[in-house]
């Protein structure tokens, strides 16, 4: 699945986008984030405070229990600040 990072989360992780293949146990957004946080301190820093993380799956805002599948476009970003 393709993961996009935006704004401060993108800066902390150090990349805008990556393709990942999590294990089959990663079935929803919450589990995906827990899995990502174990990839290193940058991920832990970027995703540690879940109150400041928002998620979109295939460009729709979703909650942590939303399922994820191979082929999904998953975006992680801080709360929007508007234009």
């Amino acid at each position: 699945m393709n993961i996009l990072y935006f704004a401060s989360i993108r800066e902390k992780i150090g990349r805008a986008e990556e393709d990942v293949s999590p294990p089959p146990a990663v079935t929803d957004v919450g589990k995906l984030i827990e899995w990502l946080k174990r990839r290193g301190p940058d991920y832990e820093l970027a995703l540690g405070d879940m109150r400041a993380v928002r998620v979109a799956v295939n460009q729709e805002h979703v909650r942590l229990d939303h399922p994820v599948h191979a082929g999904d476009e998953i975006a992680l970003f801080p709360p929007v600040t508007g234009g």
Partner: protein
Amino acid sequence: MGVRVQREDFDIGAEIAHVSKEGKDVGGIASFVGVVRGGEGPDAISAMTLEHYPGMTEKELGRIEAEALARWPISASLIVHRYGRLVPGDNIVLVVTASRHRRAAFEACEFLVDWLKTKAPFWKNEEASDGERWVAAHGDDDEAAARWNK
């Protein structure tokens, strides 16, 4: 009806004229231009950069516009939102609503602007004399947008 997200500036007069001609039986066109505030003192910013989520932004703006069209009798409308690095005085966003009645045009325009300021997927990074920082989402604007849910 239309939504555009672009790096380039927009031509306010040309956009308003276009919306006015597009609409049927238009009596009034309300519009709003948001610009980068300069200001003075320690809070003054020297530039800001708007980051967005290409594709999703346009979808969300399209939904907002559809909601406005469902709530008010609007005969034509336009949202143009810029992204990228902007300096004080630069245009950020243009909202135009045309209607037979001025009240509908004003209300729909203000509704869209309130929504854009809180719900549109943009992230703002401000540059000031003491460095740059990502702006945190704040409550005032949410309150303004909440007016419309009453």
